C-alpha cells in the first residue's frame, strides 16, 4: 500500500501522507468517533435510568446473542466458512462458567476469561476438520458438531445436570465491585442493571476487536482467502494459520456469549443448545448483514425482540392465536410459532431481495433521510471550485 501511494504521490505532486493517516485511523469519520463514545455512554446510562425488567432482560439477551453473532460473523461473513455449530461453543462457554463461576465460585473476570479460553481451545481443535472440507461436507460436519456436543454434555450430568439442567447462580464480583448488587452514588442497582452494563461493554469490546482485526493485515488475509483461496496461496498466504486463528476468535466469542447466557438465566440446560439455536444464529448473521460491523447486533436485535414482542402484544397481531397449539378449527399461528414463521420469512425475503442484509437497508435509508442535511463532500467542493475557476474569464 505504501508503494502505491508513494508512486501516486509523486505523480500527483502532492503530499498524501496526511490522507493515508486519515484513512487508516480506527474511527474514520466524526460520526463513528463520537458515535462510539455515545454508545458506550448509553450502555452505561440506560440501565441506570430504567428498572423495567422486560426491557433490561431483552437488552441482555440481545447483548449476549450479539457477542456470539459477532463471532459467527467473523467465520461466516469475513472468512466465508459455513459454521452452523455455534451452539456447541456457547455450550462450552456456559458450562465453563458454571464450573468456574458457580461450582468453584471464583470472581467474574476469572470465569469470563476461562470461558473465552476454553472456547478458543475448542475452536482450535475443530478448525482443522472444518477447514479440510468444503461445501456440503462442511455444513454437515458443523451440524454434527451440535449433536455430538449435546451427547457429550447430556452424559456429563455432574456438571450439566443432564437432561433437566441445573441452577447456576454465578459470582459476579470484580474485586470490591459486585455487579449483582451494584452500589453507585448511594443507590443499589439490581442484578439486571449490572449485567446489562457488563454485557454491552463486552459487546463493544468484541465489535472493536473485530473492527481492528479486519483492518489489520491478518484480516485482509482472511478476506483474500475467502474470495479466492488459490490466488491467496499463490501470493503466499498460509491458510492454516489465518483460518485457525479466525475459528479461535469466533468460538471464544461464542463461549463468552454462552457464559453470559448462564449469567442472565442463572439456569442452564443442555436442551437449549440445539439445532434450533444454530439455525437462529445463521439467520441472525445473514439477516443482519454478513461482513459488516453492526450486522450481528442489528440481526440480534430484530431476531430476539420478535418472540418477546409477539408474546406481549399477541392480541393485536392478526392470524395470531394467543392460546396453546390446540387445533380448534380456526386457522391461526400459535404465539410460540409466530417467531419461527417470521424468522423463516425474513431470511427468505432478505436473501431474495437484499442479500447484504438489514444494515445495508438501514444505511441506504439513513442516507436517503439525511440527503438534504448533508454538506457537499470535500471532493465535490473542490470540483465546484475548479469549475467556477474555469468559468471565470476576466
Amino acid at each position, binding site marked *: 500500500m505504501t508503494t502505491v501511494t508513494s508512486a501516486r504521490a509523486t505523480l500527483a505532486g502532492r503530499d498524501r501522507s496526511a490522507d493515508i493517516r486519515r484513512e487508516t485511523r480506527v474511527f474514520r469519520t466524526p460520526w463513528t468517533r463520537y458515535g462510539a463514545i455515545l454508545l458506550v455512554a448509553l450502555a452505561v446510562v440506560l440501565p441506570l435510568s430504567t428498572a423495567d425488567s422486560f426491557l433490561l432482560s431483552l437488552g441482555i439477551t440481545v447483548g449476549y446473542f450479539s457477542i456470539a453473532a459477532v463471532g459467527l460473523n467473523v467465520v461466516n461473513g469475513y472468512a*466465508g466458512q*459455513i459454521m452452523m455449530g455455534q451452539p456447541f461453543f456457547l455450550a462450552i462457554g456456559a458450562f465453563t462458567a458454571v464450573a468456574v463461576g458457580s461450582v468453584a465460585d471464583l470472581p467474574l473476570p476469572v470465569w469470563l476469561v476461562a470461558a473465552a479460553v476454553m472456547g478458543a481451545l475448542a475452536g482450535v481443535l475443530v478448525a482443522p*476438520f472444518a477447514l*479440510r*472440507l*468444503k*461445501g*456440503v*461436507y*462442511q*455444513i*454437515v*460436519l458443523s*451440524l*454434527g458438531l451440535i*449433536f*455430538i456436543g*449435546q*451427547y457429550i454434555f*447430556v*452424559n456429563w450430568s455432574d456438571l450439566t445436570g443432564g437432561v433437566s439442567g441445573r441452577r447456576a447462580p454465578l459470582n459476579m464480583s470484580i474485586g470490591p465491585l459486585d455487579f449483582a448488587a451494584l452500589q453507585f452514588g448511594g443507590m443499589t442497582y439490581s442484578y439486571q442493571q449490572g449485567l446489562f452494563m457488563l454485557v454491552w461493554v463486552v459487546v463493544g469490546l468484541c465489535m472493536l476487536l473485530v473492527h481492528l482485526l479486519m483492518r489489520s493485515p491478518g484480516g485482509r488475509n482472511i478476506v483474500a482467502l475467502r474470495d479466492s483461496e488459490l490466488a491467496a496461496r499463490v501470493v503466499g498466504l498460509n491458510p492454516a494459520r489465518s483460518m485457525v486463528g479466525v475459528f479461535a476468535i469466533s468460538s471464544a466469542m461464542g463461549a463468552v456469549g454462552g457464559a453470559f447466557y448462564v449469567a442472565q438465566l442463572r439456569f442452564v440446560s443442555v436442551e437449549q443448545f440445539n*439445532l434450533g439455536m444454530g*439455525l437462529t444464529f*445463521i*439467520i441472525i448473521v*445473514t439477516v443482519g448483514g454478513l461482513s459488516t460491523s453492526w450486522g450481528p447486533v442489528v440481526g440480534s436485535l430484530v431476531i430476539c425482540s420478535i418472540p418477546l414482542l409477539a408474546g406481549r402484544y399477541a392480541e393485536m397481531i392478526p392470524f395470531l392465536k394467543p392460546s396453546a*397449539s*390446540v*387445533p380448534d378449527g380456526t*386457522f*391461526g*399461528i*400459535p404465539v410460540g*410459532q*409466530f417467531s*419461527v*414463521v417470521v*424468522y*423463516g*420469512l*425474513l*431470511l*427468505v425475503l432478505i*436473501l*431474495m431481495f437484499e*442479500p447484504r442484509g438489514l444494515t445495508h437497508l438501514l444505511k441506504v435509508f439513513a442516507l436517503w433521510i439525511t440527503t438534504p442535511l448533508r454538506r457537499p463532500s470535500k471532493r465535490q467542493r473542490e470540483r465546484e471550485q475548479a469549475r467556477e475557476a474555469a468559468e471565470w474569464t476576466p
Partner: protein
Amino acid sequence: MDTFVQIAISGVALGFLYALVSLSFVVLLKATGHFNLLPGSFVLLGAYITYELHRGVGLNFWLALALAILIVAGIGLAVHYLIFQRIDRRATVSAAGLAILLVTIGLLSLSQAVAVSTWGADVLLLGDPWGLTTYRFGGIAISQRDIWVIVLSLVVLAIFWLVIQHTRIGVGMRALASDHQAAYVQGISPRRVAPYAWLMSAGAAVIAGVFMATEAGGGLRPTLDVVAFTALPALILGGIRSLPGCVAGGLVLGIVQALALGYAPSGFGQGFSTVLPWIIMIVVLLVRPSGLFAAREFRRA
C-alpha cells in the same frame, strides 16, 4: 443369534429409510447443483398432507400418498422457479450456494411453523396403513411394517435406477450434474429436467416421511424434519453425488445404529445410538473425505 438377526433386520429397515432420505438430497443436488435442506420439509409436509388426505378427507391410503407426493413436488417446483432461479441469476456460484442453503433453512422453519399451525403440535396417528401383524420365522419376529419398508424402498430404488440409467431425463440429469455447460451445449435443458428431479426427490422424501410417521410407538409430529437430518451422515458416507453410495451408506448406518441400540453398554450414556452415525461420519471424513463410494472427484464438494 436370533436377537442378532432380528436387530439386523430392523437395522436394514431403518437403513432403507436413511437411504430414501439421502436419495432425496442427492437427486436434488445432482439436478440443481446446490445442496439444500428442503428434503427435511418434504418429509414433514408430505407426512402431514398424507394424513390430511387419508384421515381428514378420507381417501384411500395409496391415493393419498400419491397425491401428497404430487403436491409436495409442486411446492418444490414453485420454490425452484421462484427462488432458486432468481438467486442463481443474481449471484456468483459460491455465494449462490450459501444463499440457497440459507433460503432452505428459512423455508424449513416456515414449513415447521405451518405444520404446527394447521395441525397442532400433538402427535397424530396415521392409522396403521401397513397392517399390524408380526410374522414369526423360527425365533425371529418381523413386523409387517418393516417388510413394507424394505419392499417399498426396493421398488423406489428400482424405479430410480431405471429412470436415471435408462431414460432420457435421467441421462440428462447425470450429464447436467457432471458438466453443466457441456450438457447445456448438447441441448439438455435444465428446465425440462427439473420437474422430474423434484418429483423423484419429493417421492422418496414423502415415502420416507410416512414410514417415519408410522413407526411403532411414534407418530406424526412436527419434529420429523429433524429426524430427516439424521440421514445426513448416510449422505456423506456414500459420497454426495453417488446414488448407489447413499443407499449403501444408509444401510450401513442403519444396521450400525440398530446394533448400537441393542448391544451398547449403558456406560456409553444415553443417546449413543443416535450420535453414533455422526461420529462414524466424522471418522470417515478424516480418513477418506470423498466418502466411501464416491466416484473420481476433482473437488471435495
